[in-house]
């Protein structure tokens, strides 16, 4: 491990200036639960870590009629405990409650999870399913990118050197909307998703017909995948298992998993179907105002 310096700017302006160093030399530090490990094992060797946890914009957590604003450095424990998030952005709570244990959740941020850009990251599919947009700031100014366009490959994303993810913005959900994230892991804890699926579903006033849906798949491709056709197949259809089954082949079609120590290609494609049905069942139950039981990791 290389020795590094640590700075903790208190304004976005300062942070952007500090990060404007040549590529790789300065690195934003949110919870550090990925970063410190990468520095320790030599995957990254920055000269300076720029702690972003003292910057007001990155600590924002606000829900209102215009939706949710989530600062990139807010930790998972804080997010999961937020009442409006619990009520309206439930998939995010599901994600934040399975990333690591209590210690990790008290440090790890959803922003860091996205910026680390692991294909199996547990919050990214939820952010995509909830229609999140990424607000990015750098020396060149501020821009916005849809969450599904943020990751570009394993460990890669649209951030240019020196750019910072400032916040995630989510639209306010329509009435009768429910969302859910679930992952399959071989154990019941301390594991990385073999497949993860985030879904958001809106029902009509009769609570019978699906009027809108978004489905995001994790760990079955180089980046999380927005499964548009699978979601499209649900719209206008009754919220039943037969309908969900129709979406299964369409979701499997866009999955491009690999064989590795976490699962085989065939098994992952199989799981996409199983988890899609299970996550739709849970999201629809939530859309109906029910509180479905679910076992994380199954």
């Amino acid at each position, binding site marked *: *491990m*290389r*020795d590094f310096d640590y700075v903790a700017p208190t304004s976005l302006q300062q942070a952007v200036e500090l990060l404007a160093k040549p590529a790789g030399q300065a690195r934003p530090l949110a919870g550090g639960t990925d970063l410190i490990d990468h520095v320790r094992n030599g995957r990254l060797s920055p000269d300076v870590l720029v702690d972003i946890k003292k910057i007001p914009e990155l600590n924002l957590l606000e829900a209102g009629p215009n939706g949710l604003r989530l600062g990139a450095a807010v930790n998972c424990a804080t997010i999961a405990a937020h009442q409006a998030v619990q009520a309206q952005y439930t998939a995010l709570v599901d994600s934040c409650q399975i990333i690591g244990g209590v210690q990790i959740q008290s440090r790890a941020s959803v922003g860091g999870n996205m910026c680390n850009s692991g294909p199996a990251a547990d919050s990214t599919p939820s952010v995509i399913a909830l229609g999140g947009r990424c607000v990015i700031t750098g020396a060149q100014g501020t821009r916005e990118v849809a969450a599904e366009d943020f990751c570009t490959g394993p460990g890669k994303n649209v951030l240019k050197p020196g750019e910072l993810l400032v916040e995630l913005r989510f639209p306010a959900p329509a009435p009768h909307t429910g969302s859910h994230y679930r992952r*399959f892991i*071989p*154990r*019941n*804890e*301390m*594991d*990385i998703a*073999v497949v993860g699926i985030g879904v958001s579903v809106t029902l009509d006033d009769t609570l019978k017909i699906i009027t809108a849906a978004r489905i995001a798949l994790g760990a079955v491709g180089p980046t999380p995948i927005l499964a548009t056709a699978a979601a499209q197949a649900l719209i206008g259809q009754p919220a039943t298992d037969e309908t969900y089954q129709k979406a299964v082949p369409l979701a499997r079609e866009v999955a491009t998993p690999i064989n*590795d*120590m*976490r*699962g*085989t290609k*065939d*098994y992952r494609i*199989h*799981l996409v179907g*199983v988890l899609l049905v299970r996550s739709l069942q849970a999201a629809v139950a939530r859309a109906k105002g029910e509180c479905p039981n679910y076992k994380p990791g*199954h």
Partner: protein
Amino acid sequence: MSTVEKPSYKVIGTRPIRHDGVDKVTGRAKYGADIRLTGMLWAAMLRSPHAHAKITRLDTSKAKALPGVRAVVTSKDFPDQGDRLVELGEGSVNMKHLAANVLAHDKVLYHGHAIAAVAADSIHIAQQAVELIEIEYEVLPPVQDALSAMKPESPVLNTDVRTKGYVAGGPGSADQPTNVASRIYFEQGDIKKGFADAAVVVEREFHTATVHQGYIEPHNATVLWNADGKVTVWMSTQGTFTARQQTAELLRIPVSDVKVVPMEIGGGFGGKISVYLPPVAAMLSKLSGRPVQLVMDRAAVLLATGPTPGSYIRVKVGTDKSGRIIAADAYLAYEAGAYPGSPIGPGCMCIFSCYDIPNARVEGYDVCVNKPRTNAYRAPGSTNAAFAMETVLDEIAKQLKLDPAEIRLLNAAKEGTRRVDGPKYSRIGMAETVEAIRDSAHYQSPLPGPNRGRGIATGFWFNVGLKSSVTATLNLDGKVSLLEGSTDIGGTRTSIAMQFAETLGIPCEDVHPSVVDTDSIGYTDVTGGSRTTFSTGIAAVNAANDIKQQLIERAAIHWQTTPDKVQYIDGGVTCSDGQRLTFKELAAELHELGGPVIGQGTSGKEAQGGAFGTHCVDVEVDPETGKVQILRYTAAQDCGTAIHPSYVEGQIQGGAVQGIGWALNEEFWYDPKGLLRNATFLDYRMPTCYDVPMIDAIIVEVPDPSHPYGVRGVGEVPICPPPAAIANAIANAVGVQMTTLPMSPPKIMAELLKQKK
């Protein structure tokens, strides 16, 4: 559950607080990596990025030139070992292979094989210097499973390996280099006739994965090579004396010049017997003139230490109509890893060890592959074998519509049964453990609900005796300092102190046990083979009896009589005239009665009788994902006499959990290039507390006649039954009979999908 009327013990069978408890729970206990010595250097190692390669160039000059670097070593800095075998306590070891495993010679044989080491002023400098070592390889094709490595066209790892025990007609050849390091063959009765007479015959093939002990504390060594040539090693080890001998042999210095100081040990399970680091740190210390600390990280532990072998096993069993086994045949090929030495011997001896089988044959092979050199792991070789035999037996029970407990009882080995490898059992408790499970509330309870199933399985381990030493000093306040050489992994300070206290009739709390270095106690073999409570216990009982004898003499002086008039009874001495002194009263007088009293005891002649366990498990299988949940688990085990029942239960529970890990998810995952891709606890999936229910332990007590209190070792048996019991439960739940370990979700799902077709 006891099979005999137990003597009324005062200390044995109680549950005193462990002597090392306060240090452990307050974090004050000192482990190897806690050592800080004046002027100490930090060391880092270069490890192979390839599974199999020739080293064509190795240049450490740039690393040596980095400021802050004090020494760099490669295998060239070590004395040549020649061709010699050295007896290292638990068997003889080829020193050339041991040395090449510590630092590779001209070839690397597995991903993570150690090549060079650097000592520097800080760990960061040492790590940076490692990156400056220039090395080139000629990469060779790897071979990673036993059956492939046995084929004539396979790449050969070691040019000096010939097949030991080879007979014409088998694979390999007596004079050609081969990966087949040894062949084992046992036979009794007439298996041809046995199978011809059988009413039911089941034959299956099994594959088990390479798995690691997973001790929480990584290997470490801090070494000072002093200016007088004396070497002191502080380390985590299961056996200070074998660590001393291995270190001395590798450095080719006299054993008495090496002192090994045992630190607390964070788990070993067999994996902390072989040395990896002490000779390297010693050489770095010699070259730098400073103490050197070398600590592995988790990746190094998983890449280059342990593991226990992956295996291929074929078993064929025939029974008559009643379920009585009349013939059994087994073929086993165990992966030795880079150098010979898999537990194929015990595997072959254990596979049929639970049953009385008139006609049997076992053939086994020890095969080198491009994986880390295997080491002992809790009942080495037995778990693989039990997985095969115990699932085949269940299939037969199913065909004959016999209860799984009944078929085991029908065939149970007992006193006088001859094992296929020759020995006859003394009094054993195999049937008693099956009965304990059969009669348990768990086995008797219904198991309602879909996709749920129950399975049982039995396991065996020999348990060894070997040698131990204990000395005990009586203090004037009537308390005793007890010194022992057995490093304490499972609470043995207390279980040994308890036997000592029982013998003298004093409270266990009055005995203060310490595990001391190799200069401070007599020779003691490793804490392994489930031997410590048995054998070091015997040494402690002998030391206590020695003290008894001396106290009788002192009391005779006190009473101005002769020793034959004095008896030691019930924690004190009694004179034939009725006078009595308690242990404490007599201790207070010692200085007036001739000075200090020091007792000593050794053990070495006693052989243990072997132990059995039977487990019962309920599982639920998710039919859509193949994931298995363990709902309920009960383990019954014959432990002879439970000295400290909590520690017996702890061993049973710990072993069962490790076995559950083998069963469900643990495996070394190598990519096609032979690189280990899951050298982390994230992807090497040991069970967590969310994956395992409370393990109910049923202690069965069939005293071992070879121990004064009837102790049988308990540490190893409990890892043997779980994979088979869980496979049997899965079959019972969803109708697929698994023959591959681990029975991970993708593998079970694949079988379930096949079944649907």
